[in-house]
């Protein structure tokens, strides 16, 4: 349950750049700032959160509290390819569960472990993405794969692995 303490240091200038967009440094800017930081790093690095706390004159505990309250924020670094498998009702009926199972096997994931050891893939089952007409749906970063199935997805993962020299 604890946040993983990430060792690699991040560039705080970038964080400062984001904070500078909010010159009033209001407490109510916190969520927006955290959102931008997550866009930048794909997750919320601890150093960045501590820095934001100091900049907004909040306690680290307060920032951590907000960051862990919203499901939108993530405290773990994510893989290069973030795969979201829709497991909403429509996709579930169309066997999204099998796709999830396959991916867990292919990528060595399961339980709390959502990112592959080589930091290439992060896979999460998500609630309805609002594309039930083309169920089952999988998102890989910005790309949408509709009406897909286990075999097509296995092929896609193998293709990416090959391209990345990881196969």
């Amino acid at each position, binding site marked *: *349950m604890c946040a993983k303490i990430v060792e690699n240091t991040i560039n705080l200038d970038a964080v400062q750049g984001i904070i500078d967009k909010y010159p009033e440094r209001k407490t109510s800017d916190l969520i927006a700032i955290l959102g931008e930081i997550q866009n930048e790093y794909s997750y919320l690095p601890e150093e960045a959160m501590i820095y934001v706390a*100091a900049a907004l004159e909040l306690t680290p*505990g*307060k920032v*951590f*509290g907000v960051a*862990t*309250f919203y499901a939108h924020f993530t405290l773990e670094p994510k893989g290069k390819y973030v795969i979201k498998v829709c497991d909403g009702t429509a996709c579930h009926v169309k066997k999204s569960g099998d796709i999830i199972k396959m991916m867990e096997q292919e990528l060595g994931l399961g339980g709390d472990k959502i990112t592959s050891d080589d930091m290439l893939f992060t896979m999460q089952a998500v609630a309805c993405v609002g594309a039930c007409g083309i169920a089952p749906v999988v998102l890989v970063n910005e790309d949408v794969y509709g009406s897909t199935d286990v075999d097509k997805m296995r092929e896609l993962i193998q293709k990416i692995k090959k391209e990345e020299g990881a196969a």
Partner: protein
Amino acid sequence: MKVIIDQIEMSSNEDITILELCRKAGIELPTFCYHPEISIFGACRMCVVEVQNGNWKGVVPACSTKVADGMVVQTNSPQIRKMRKMIVELMLASHDQQCTTCPKSGDCQLQRVATQLGVTDVRFKQMPCEVPRDYSSDAITRDPSKCVLCGNCVRVCGEVQAVGTLDFAFRGAKSLVGPGFGKGLGEFENGCVSCGQCVKICPVGALTPKHHIEEVWNVIHDEKKTVVVQVAPAVRVALAEYFGKPSGTVATGAMITALRRIGFAKVFDTCYAADVTVVEEGNEFLARRKAGNTKPMFTSCCSAWVKYAEQNYPELLPNLSSCRSPQQMFGALCKEQLPQIMGIKRENLVVVSVMPCTAKKTEAARDELKGDVDIVITTNELALMMKEIGITPENFDNLQSGDFDAPYGSASGGAVIFGKAGGVSEAVLRYIAESENKGGAKSVKALSDSKDGVKVSEISTGGNTLKLAAVSGLANAKKLVDSIKAGEVHYDLIEVMACAGGCVNGGGQPIAPVTDNAAANRTEGLGSCDKSSSACVSCENAELKSYEDLGHDKAHKILHTKYQDSKVTLEKLVQNAK
């Protein structure tokens, strides 16, 4: 307005809550998240009552619902009984239920409420929080598996102390109270100040003073060691509460005897060092003024305040008196003088202190002070040790009255009142008045209450008027310091105590029921100790000679200290990242 509570007709003109009116009606509702010193949260739902108001009927939390004319309140309907039991069962299901080994056992609100409501079994699967105990702080032990998420600690830490280290994290079933980032209380260099107000407000055993009882027994049972103890003023007016006495009972003599029975070779009075503090600090203050240093001087007795200033107001550190706290002065004096006086080796001398305070544990462990005071226990731990050697509420009165040992056993009334808010200032005032003209100390009055936990006083000396302020509670202190910095108010000497009401209300003191005005009663107890002291002013302490023997240079070296800027700034964070 008229309100009916369980058939009792009550009338009220005030804008109060159902809970408060129930109390007036002689009905004590079970609560967890309600505490008069902090904001109303209304989260635990333990205080629910059934209300009929005109056509509206429903269940509301009594702590956060105001009474209204014509309201009919039922506190014990079948529905309420069922709901309350369910709430307790759910709490117990997410609690580790290891009562027999819990430091809070016997003094726990969850135990009390479960018994009060007749909860004899729990229908739900037990799923306590699995975050391990946090021993990282020298002062406070945190056990998330016992936390009931009432949020009292979060609010006292943020609202009353303006520290805000403790906060909620995660949500739903995973909710957790802690300092965040999976870290412990002692792992943020600029976080917890160890004041222990969270310990005092925690209804269960999730936050307790870190115990150092075993360490004390180990040295006492080590034949090579000579173990001496010093006891702070606020302990003597609170200790007896653990043995069934009303708050404020003065138990100095019994306490001394108990300490001897535990096995301490000498029992000394921290008040002795408080007298030394008054002389050192009084002289420092007068010297600063003479040197034309007109900035205000802040007291440095309270180590939680010192740490708070270091992390929030580094620019004020030169204004902090360089005097060590009485605890540390005492430790330094013992280590300097006792080996010779007692004919023992310095390394075999162990100094233990009994404090009303958890922050004193952290203070004694500071790098620059380490080694003077070896072990610090709180009033709470002393009571546990006394119980361990067979002292009970029934035989407590049989303890004969003992006296403190020389050469650090005498104290002036000025030193005893160090334990109350405004006491240090009053003692310094007495000292200054006495230096002005002999007998002047007698006419000094206690500081008078102003607002926001601030007490003030004035004294004229050498043709000048000196303005003093004493503030307690760190949020109050922050307010005062900010208005001083903004130039809105001006004082010459400012006493700061981290805990509201001063040391009598410290984090290591007994946890009195909220309906008992314990801090005020203990303050009164100190007042009676002050009155019965043979000396009124610190410089009249009959044993001060031991201190004077040190000579000026030595005294300065071992009785003063330095502070460090530990404020987290953006520049420092960038530097560290590189």
